[in-house]
C-alpha cells in the first residue's frame, strides 16, 4: 500500500514534469515573430487597442488563442492569425510570451489621482485581486492586468460587461456586471498605472 502510494506520487511528479517540458519557449519565440509586429518587439504593445503579452501567464495566452481559433472570442484583427493554429504552436508561443519581462507601454499617460481614487473604491468590493492576485500579475488562466494598455483594459471590461466577450468560464462577466463606463475608465487607469 505504501509502495503503491509512493509509486503513484512518483508518477504524478513525472506527469507534471512531462507537461512542463512539452512547452518549448524557444520554438515559440520563432513562431511568435509575426505577433511582435503589433504586440511589440519585447511583448509590450506600443499600439492602441493591442494588448501587451509580455509576462502573461502561459495558460491565459493558450486559452485565449484557443477561444480566438474556435471563433468563441471575437477579435477580427486576430482571426487570420488564430485560424487553424495547432495546439502545440499555441502552447509554445504562450510559453515564450510568459518568459518576457512585463512592463508598461512607452506612451503611458501620467497618473490621474481622481481616477485612481475612484478605482480604489471599486477594487475591494469587486474582489479584483482575489483572482488577479495582489500585484495584479495574474496566474494560470487569469491575465496580468498590471501595466496593461489602459484603452485595451477599458475595452476588455466593456466587452465582458456587455456580454460580447466571455472567458473559458464567466467569472469576468460576473465580476464587471453593473459597472458604469466611468467605473471602467477608472479601473483601467488604476491598473494601467500598476
Amino acid at each position, binding site marked *: 500500500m505504501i509502495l503503491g502510494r509512493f509509486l503513484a506520487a512518483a508518477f504524478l511528479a513525472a506527469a507534471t514534469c512531462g507537461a512542463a517540458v512539452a512547452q518549448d519557449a524557444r520554438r515559440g519565440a520563432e513562431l511568435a515573430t509575426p505577433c511582435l509586429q503589433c504586440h511589440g518587439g519585447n511583448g509590450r504593445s506600443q499600439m492602441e487597442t493591442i494588448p501587451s503579452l509580455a509576462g502573461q501567464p502561459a495558460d491565459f495566452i493558450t486559452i485565449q488563442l484557443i477561444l480566438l481559433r474556435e471563433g468563441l472570442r471575437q477579435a477580427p484583427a486576430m482571426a487570420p492569425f488564430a485560424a487553424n493554429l495547432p495546439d502545440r504552436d499555441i502552447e509554445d508561443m504562450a510559453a515564450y510570451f510568459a518568459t518576457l519581462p512585463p512592463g508598461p507601454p512607452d506612451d503611458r499617460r501620467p497618473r490621474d489621482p481622481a481616477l485612481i481614487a475612484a478605482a480604489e473604491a471599486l477594487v475591494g468590493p469587486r474582489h479584483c485581486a482575489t483572482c488577479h492576485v495582489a500585484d495584479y500579475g495574474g496566474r494560470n488562466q487569469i491575465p496580468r492586468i498590471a501595466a496593461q494598455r489602459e484603452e485595451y483594459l477599458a475595452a476588455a471590461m466593456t466587452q465582458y460587461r456587455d456580454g460580447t466577450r466571455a472567458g*473559458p468560464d464567466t467569472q469576468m462577466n460576473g465580476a464587471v456586471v453593473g459597472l458604469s463606463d466611468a467605473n471602467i475608465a477608472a479601473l483601467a487607469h488604476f491598473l494601467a498605472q500598476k
Partner: protein
Amino acid sequence: MTIRRLFLGAAAMLIAGPALAQAPVPGWAIGRPEGSTLAPHAPRLTVTPLDQVPVAALRLPPGFHAEVYAHGIPGVRAIAEGPNGTLFAGSRGIGRVYAITRNADGTTRTRVFAQGLAQPSGLVMIGNSLYVFAVNRVLRYDNVEANLDSPAAPVDLTAAFALPTEQDHGGNHHWKFVSLGPDGRIYTNVGAPCNVCEFDRDRFALLVSFNPDGSDRRIEARGVRNSVGMAHHPVTRELWATNHGRDWIGDDSPEDSLLRVRRTGEDFGFPMCLGTWSDPEHNRGRACSEFSQPAALLGGHVAALGMRFYTGTMFPEQYRNQVFIARRGSWNRNRLSGYDVVVAKLDAQGNVTGVEDFMTGLRDDANQRFLDRPAEVHVLRDGSLLVSGEQMGAVYRITYRQ
C-alpha cells in the same frame, strides 16, 4: 476554524453592504471573505498527449481495470450514445460537440461534430436525433449517425424551449445537463442566477421537463441550486439528480447532494436550506424539515456532476442499479476534495445506505494538485463504465474481470 470563517463571512457582508449602493457585488461573489484567493481552476483546452493521460494513476476496487477509451478530446463532458453506438460528447469552454466512433481494431476515432457553440454541455439522443443544449439554445440534429462528417443544418428549437439566457442568469449556472426520461420527456436543469441570492423560485433553481418539441414545460423539482447530472431509476422510474451546494460559507457545508424526486414539483429548499443545514444568511426563518431531504450528502464543494444507475451485467451483482457519480473536484475549498467517482449504494427501498469510493488516484493531497477531473459517467452496452476526464480530454473505460 468554523467560527473564524463565519466571522470573515460576516465581515465581508458588512464590507459588501455599503458597496452595494455604488456597484452591486456580483452574484457569484456574494459572501466571499475579503482576502480569499480561491478561484476556479484553469481548464485545459489543448490536446493532452496520450502519454500524459493519467490512466496509470487510477485506483479501483479489486478486479476492476481502467484503460484509455478515447483521448485528444479537450474539455470532454457529457456523453450521449446513438443507436449505432456513436458516442457524442459535449463540452463547455471550447464550445465543441465531439463524435466518437469505434474502429474495427477496437481503437476510437474522434471527430469535431459541431463547434463555435456557447457551452454545449447538454446532450441527449432521442431515436436518431441528437439534441444539443448550449445554454438556452436548443439544436436538434436529425439522422445524426449517418452524417457524422457533414451534418445537416440542425433544427433550431430555442424559441420553443424558451430557457433563460446567460444574461437572464447573470452569468451564473446557465449551462445545461440533459437527460431523456422513461416517459420520453427531456429533463434538464435551470440553475440559480447567483451563488446565493433571492430570486424567482418558479424560474430558477429548478429541474424541469419538456416534450421533445419544447412544449409542456413542467417543474419536476424546486429549490435545486444547480444540477449537472441526473438519471431515472431503472426500476422505480423516479428522477434522481446531483446538486451543488453554495460557496463562500465554509469548506464542508452545505454539502453537494444526491436528490431523489419522489413527487413532481417537490422543494429541496434552496436558498433557505439544504437537508438539515440552514443558510445563516438566507433562511428567512424557515424550518428545514419543511423541505424535501436529499437522498445522500456527497461532501462540501466536491462538484458532483454526471450520475448513472449501473444497468449492465459486467460488474458484480452488488453494483446493479447503484448510482455511479463523477465528482469533478473542488475549487471553493481550502484543501482539494472530490476528483473521483463514487458509488451511492441503495437498498431495496431505494434508500442510500452509503457512499463509497470507486475510482480514485486523481487527487494528490500532499501537493494539493489534481491530475484530471471526472465530469460524466456512462454505461456502455457491454456493461463497462466510461468516465470522461474533462481536464485531460480523455475518456476512461472501466472493465471488470473475475
